[in-house]
Structure formats: structure tokens, C-alpha cells
């Protein structure tokens, strides 16, 4: 259907052209423009078809983890959640080594959804951040933060729980927070 559109547009353009040689040249040019437009429309249309079954992200890219050492006794964990994907609040788990969590992290409230099987569940979209208070930490200590998360894509798939980990060095008291460190998953091959 949409393939026809550029041609009919071209016809419209031709209709307004003056007769004669100049007009003929213009017609040729606008026909080339019409072909190019057709190509663009065709490609757009076909990627529209492709979008019906969208290319899904690998879980570590759909839910991109980074950790920042804030001070000598706390780190901040962040997930950048790709558009069209979400994480379950109840499935978030954190562990820190060799220091330990001083208390259960205060998870931000999510968007409440009613699940017919599990009851009320909360989900996160966009950006998720939580501060983890540490005990047994000391300045300069390298701590490894392990974050377990589980989420789904609106496209209709769910990923099994995944554990990602990031190691950061804690700053000295009064020192600057460290730079955020991203969990960079090793690619197994070019094809996955």
C-alpha cells in the first residue's frame, strides 16, 4: 500500500510542472527522487514489519549495572533499564565482599502491578539506584558488589535472574566519590 504513495506524489509533482524540455528534465529528476523516496518508504515499511518482532537485548544490556563508591562506607548501585524493559523489585538482591551490608538496602518504591498469580508486584523502569551501607569497610578497600536482578521485556519475554558484579575501590574519608564502574560482560563470541 505505502509503496504506491511516492509514485502518486511524483505524479502530483509532474502535474504541476511546465511542459517542454526543462519540464522533462525536472520530471526525470523528480522520478529519481520518487524512486529514492520509494526506497526509503519501502525500507521504513519493512523495518516496521521487523519491529513487530523486535530484536531483543541481551539481559546484561537490557539491565546495565554500574556501581559507584560514594564514600568509605557506602556504594551506590545503578541499573539503567532499556526502554521497553523492566525489573522486579522483589527479585533485587545485593551482596558485597569482603565488606558486608550494614543493613538491608532501602529499595525505592516501584510501579505497583497486580499479578493474577503472585498478587501485588512492583516494577522498575528507566533508572534504578540504591545506596548500600557497608560494615567492615575501610578506605582504599576494593569491594565487589554482586547484584541479582530479574526482569522482562514488554515484547513478551522474561529473562531468568542474572547476577552481575562490579569491583570498586572505596575512597578515603572526606575524599571524592569514585567514578561509576560499569559491569562489562565478556562477549562469548561475535554472535551472542
Amino acid at each position, binding site marked *: 500500500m505505502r*509503496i*504506491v504513495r*511516492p*509514485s502518486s506524489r*511524483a*505524479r502530483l509533482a*509532474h502535474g504541476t*510542472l511546465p*511542459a*517542454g524540455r526543462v*519540464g*522533462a528534465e525536472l*520530471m*526525470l529528476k523528480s*522520478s529519481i527522487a*520518487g*524512486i529514492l523516496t*520509494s*526506497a526509503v*518508504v*519501502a*525500507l521504513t*515499511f*519493512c*523495518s516496521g*514489519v*521487523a*519491529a*513487530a*518482532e523486535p*530484536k*531483543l537485548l*541481551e*539481559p546484561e544490556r537490557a539491565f546495565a549495572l554500574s556501581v559507584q563508591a560514594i564514600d568509605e562506607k557506602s556504594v551506590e548501585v545503578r541499573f539503567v533499564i532499556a526502554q521497553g524493559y523492566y525489573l*522486579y523489585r522483589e*527479585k533485587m538482591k545485593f551482596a558485597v565482599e569482603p565488606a558486608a551490608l550494614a543493613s538491608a538496602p532501602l529499595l525505592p518504591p516501584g510501579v505497583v502491578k497486580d*499479578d493474577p*498469580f*503472585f498478587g501485588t508486584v512492583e516494577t522498575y523502569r528507566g533508572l534504578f539506584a540504591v545506596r548500600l551501607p557497608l560494615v567492615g569497610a575501610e578506605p582504599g578497600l576494593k569491594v565487589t558488589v554482586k547484584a541479582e536482578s*530479574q526482569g*522482562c*521485556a514488554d*515484547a*513478551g*519475554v*522474561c*529473562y*531468568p535472574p542474572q547476577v552481575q558484579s562490579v569491583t570498586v575501590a572505596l575512597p578515603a574519608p572526606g575524599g571524592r566519590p569514585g567514578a561509576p564502574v560499569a559491569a562489562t560482560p565478556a562477549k562469548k563470541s561475535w*554472535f*551472542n
Partner: protein
Amino acid sequence: MTSPFATRRPLVWATMALAAVIALGAGLYFGGFADRGNVTDLRGKEAGALFGVALPDAKGREQSIGQWKGKVLVVNFWATWCVPCREEMPEFVKVQQELGPRGLQFVGIAIDDVPKVEAFAAELGLNYPVLIGGYGAIELSRTFGNRLGALPFTIIVDRAGRISHTQLGPIKDAQLRTIVSQLL
């Protein structure tokens, strides 16, 4: 000068023809890739390894998938924590009921624990066997082209034991019926 309509007509047709060719090419190219984009295309391959898989059912009895060889087999990897998985299963129950007598066999592989599977199976009135896979079954699904290890993942195998279709994400009712009815 003849009517401008006469000179532009071939151009219009040429434009349309070329557009059609481009659209067809693009459709084949992108459509072909998009369709298999999230799974490795194993259609037509032997599903041999699948028939060697044995997993416990909810009662703890070991069940070999080989016992269903010769049927049109629909193996569905799912979990209760996967909403899209749960949403497509009532349709599976219907299709099993309708086409089971003609030789269609659904088998669920749950990436889950027994109590949740039993609760959901009871709620749904599940009429086909479910095996308890645990997270190891995700790895099994990867060997059948589920590169992302996500759910639901479905493998349709013909009577001869060849993979006819694999799908990541819910399978549309019409598509499911079309595929299996060609195999029955």
C-alpha cells in the same frame, strides 16, 4: 509537444516497478532476519539431543522426552515468574485438548520449583506433562537456538524428529495452529 502525461507515464511505471522490487528485496531481507533475529535458526535440523533429555516431573519421576518421539511435539520452556509464559498457556491447553487425539503432544519444561508449578498447573487445569528443569534447562534451551536464554521459548518438532519451528516469546494462536496442522 505531446501531452506530458504520455512522456511521464513510463517513468511512473518504472518508478513503481523499481519501488516494488526494492520493497520485495527489503521485505525478504529484513523480514527474513527479523523472523529469526532472536533465535538461531535450526529449522529442519534433527532434534535428536532433545529426545535424550530426561527430567523429573512434579512427582519426582524421571521422564524422558524420547517417550513422545513420533508425535508432533511442542516443547515449551516456561516459568511461573514469567507473565508472558503464563498468558499463552491457556491456549496450549485448548490446542492440546483439540489436537491431542490427532497426535499432538505439548510438554512443558518449567524453570521453576515444584510447589509453584503444581499450584499453577492446578489453577490452569494443565492437561499436558510438565517437567521440572531448574535453571539448567535454560542452558538446554540455548542449545536449541535460544541465544538470550529468555522465556517463553518453544520448539516444535515433527513426527520424524526434525525441528520445524523455534520461537522466543509468545507464539500466536493462529501461527501455532498453522504450524502444527501442517505437521499432523
